C-alpha cells in the first residue's frame, strides 16, 4: 500500500529526514517510534504533503501512485488520513458542517453522490458512539475551545467518518489521560480492516498496549535504525532509546 524509498526532506535549510525506507501493506499496523527530534512527525507531515517541508530525495508510492506528486487534498481524497498532533481550530464552523463538507469532498472525488445533512446525521450518530460522544459536540466550532483530549478524540471521529485506507496517527496519545487513551485506541481498533493500514507515530510504548502493532520501527537522526516486532516496543520501554543509538554508533 505504502512504499517509501530513500526519502529525504528538509525544513528550511535543515535536513530532517535522511533516507527513510518503509513498506506498509494492507491490513498492517506499523509503529514509528523514536526520541524527540528524530523526525517522526516530519515523516507523518511529509506523507500528508505539508508545504513547510521540501522533499529533496527518494520516492513515496501509495497504491502504486507517486504520492509526492499529489496535492494534499488529492492524497486525502485517495484515502490518506493524518490524525494531527496539534489539530487546528476553525472558529465559526460547526463540527457537523465541517465533517459533512470533508465527507462530501472525498465522495465527490470518488465519483459518489454527495449526502444531504439528514443522511449524514445517521452516519454521524453511529460514528459518535465509537468515540463515546453525544451529539452536542457536533454543534461546537471545529476544535475551538476543545481540550487537548477532545481534539484528539475529534481526530479519531473524523477518521471514523472518512474511512481512510492509510491512517497516520501523529502522537495521538500525547496529552491523553488513561480514559481518553482507551477511547481513542478503541476507535482505532474498531476501524481496522484487512484492506486498510495504520501507521502509529509515538514516543511512548503505552499506546501500543492498546493498539498492537505488527511492526515497530525506531527512527533516529532522520533514519530508521531498527525494525522489529511488537516486542521491540517493550524493549524500548525498558531500556530507553540510548542503547539503540549506541548500537547504531558502534556499527
Amino acid at each position, binding site marked *: 500500500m505504502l512504499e517509501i524509498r530513500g526519502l529525504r526532506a528538509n525544513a528550511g535549510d535543515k535536513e530532517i529526514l535522511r533516507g527513510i525506507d518503509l513498506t506498509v501493506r494492507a491490513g498492517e499496523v506499523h509503529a514509528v517510534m523514536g526520541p524527540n527530534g528524530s523526525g517522526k512527525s516530519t515523516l507523518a507531515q511529509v506523507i500528508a504533503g505539508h508545504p513547510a517541508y521540501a522533499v529533496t530525495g527518494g520516492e513515496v508510492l501509495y497504491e502504486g501512485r507517486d504520492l509526492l506528486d499529489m496535492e494534499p*487534498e488529492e*492524497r486525502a481524497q485517495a484515502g490518506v488520513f493524518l490524525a494531527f498532533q496539534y489539530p487546528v481550530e476553525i*472558529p*465559526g*464552523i460547526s463540527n457537523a458542517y465541517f465533517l459533512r463538507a470533508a465527507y462530501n469532498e472525498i465522495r465527490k*472525488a470518488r465519483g459518489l453522490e454527495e449526502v444531504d445533512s439528514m443522511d449524514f446525521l445517521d452516519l454521524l450518530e453511529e460514528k459518535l458512539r465509537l468515540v463515546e460522544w453525544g451529539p452536542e459536540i457536533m454543534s461546537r466550532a471545529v476544535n475551538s475551545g476543545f481540550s487537548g483530549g477532545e481534539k484528539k478524540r475529534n481526530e479519531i471521529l473524523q477518521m471514523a467518518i472518512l474511512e481512510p485506507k492509510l491512517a497516520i496517527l501523529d502522537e495521538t496519545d500525547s496529552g491523553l489521560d488513561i480514559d481518553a487513551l482507551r477511547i481513542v485506541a478503541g476507535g482505532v481498533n474498531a476501524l481496522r480492516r484487512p484492506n486498510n493500514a495504520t501507521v502509529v507515530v509515538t514516543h511512548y510504548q503505552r499506546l501500543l498496549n492498546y493498539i498492537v502493532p505488527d511492526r515497530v520501527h525506531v527512527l533516529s537522526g532522520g533514519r530508521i535504525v531498527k525494525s522489529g516486532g511488537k516486542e521491540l516496543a517493550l524493549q524500548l520501554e525498558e531500556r530507553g532509546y540510548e542503547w539503540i543509538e549506541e548500537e547504531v554508533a558502534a556499527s
Partner: protein
Amino acid sequence: MSSPVETLVNKEYKYGFVTDIESDVAPRGLNEDIIRLISAKKTEPEWLLKWRLKAFRGWLKMTEPHSWPNIRYNPIDYQSLRYYAAPKTKMPLGSLDDVDPKLLETYQKLGIPLSEQKLLAGVAVDAIFDSVSVGTTYKAKLAEVGIIFCSFGEAVREHPDLVRKYLGSVVPASDNFFAALNAAVFSDGSFVFVPRGVQCPMELSTYFRINAAETGQFERTLIVAEEGASVSYLEGCTAPRRDENQLHAAVVELVALEGATIKYSTVQNWYAGDAEGRGGIYNFVTKRGKCAGANSKISWTQVETGSAITWKYPSVILQGDNSVGEFYSVAVVNGKQQADTGTKMIHMGKNTRSTIVSKGISAGQGQNSYRGLVKVLPKAAGARNYTQCDSMLIGNRCGAHTFPYIEVQNSTAAVEHEASTSKIGEDQIFYLKQRGLNTENAISMIVNGFCKEVFKELPMEFAVEAQKLLGVTLEGSVG
C-alpha cells in the same frame, strides 16, 4: 512543495457589463444652475430647491476629507463630473408595466427580476438606475397596510409633508463634505414610511446600479418607522467595469420612533477596479439612524466586498431611553482596495445599549481600517456598549488597522472593547486540505467561519449571497 500565501489575481467582476441605452445627461460641472436643472427635471417644490442650494453653498466652504481617513486618493475634480443621468425611455418611469425592456433585461442579468411573479417571494424591490428609479415592486400590496415604499422623487411629489418633516433630520445637509454634496445634487433613492403599529410583512430592498460613464451617483434613502412599527430593508449595488473612478456619495437616514425597529442590511459589491488599481467606485457614504423614541432599535448589517475605496460609518444616535443600536460588519479588501469603515454609537438616553461586531478581512495589497466611536453623553446613565473588532489577514502585503474612539461622560456607563488580529495560517489551510478540501474551499470555509456572527444577522437569502460573494472576492488571493 512550498505554497506560500501570496499574490492574488483579481477575479473577473461578474457585473461589469454596460447597458447600451440612450441617456438624458446633465452637462459636466457643478454650479447652482446644475442644481436648478436637477430640481426642475424632478419638478421639485421650491422649498427643496432652496434646501439644495443652501447645502451647495455650505459645501463650497468645506474641504474633501484627506487627512483623517486611512485612505489615499487624488482630489476629485468635481467640475469634470456629471450630476444627472437618466435613461431615455418612451414611457415615463415608475411603473413596471411599461418599463423599457433594456432596463428589465439589465436587472434580469443582475439577478434581480422585476416582474412580481418572478420575484423572491416576500421581497419588494425599488430599482435605481443611475439617477432615477426604474420602478418599485409590490407597491400596491404594501399600501394596503399603509406602508409607503417608493422612489424618493415620487415621495417628494406624493408625500411632501412627510419628506419635509424628516429630510435632513438625522444627517443635516451640513454634516460633512460628501453629505453636503449629496444634499445639493441628490437624484433619487428610496423612501419608506411604516405607520404606527405596522409590522412590514415583507423585506424591502433597493438595488442600485450605476451605468452611465463619468457620472456620480448621489442617492438618498429615508426610512421612517412610526411608534411600534418594524421594517427590514436591504440594499445591493453593482456598477460596470470602467477605467475611471466613479463617485458614489449616498446618504441614508433612518428614524425610529418609540418602540420601532429598523433593520438595514447592505451587500455592497460596486466595481472594485482592476488588479493594478485602475478604476472602481469611490463609495463615500453617510448612513445614520436615530432612535428617536424610547425602546426603539436600529440595526445595521453590512457586507462590503466591492468599491475601490469605501468610506462609511453607519451610525446610531441613541436618543430614546432604553433604545438599542447595533452594527454588524464584514469588510473585505483584495487587490488594491481600501476601506475605512466602522460606526458611531452616540448614547444620549438612559439605559441605551449598543453592540458593534466588525470583521475586517484583508488580502492582496488591500488596506482595511476599522474606525469607530462610542460616545456616552452625561445623561446616558446605565449605557452599555460592547465592541468586538476582529481582523484577518491573508498574505503578507495587506494591512489591517483599528481606530477605536471611546468618550464616556457618565460614570454609570460600561463600555467593553475586544479586538483580535489573526492570519489565515498555512496550518489551517493544510488541515482542511488534509480533509479533502481544495485551497479555495478551505479559505472560504475559514473566512465564513470568521464572519459567522455577522452573516447570521442577514436575512436568509442574503446570507447565502454574501457567503458566495466573499468566496468570489477572495478567489485567487492565495497562490
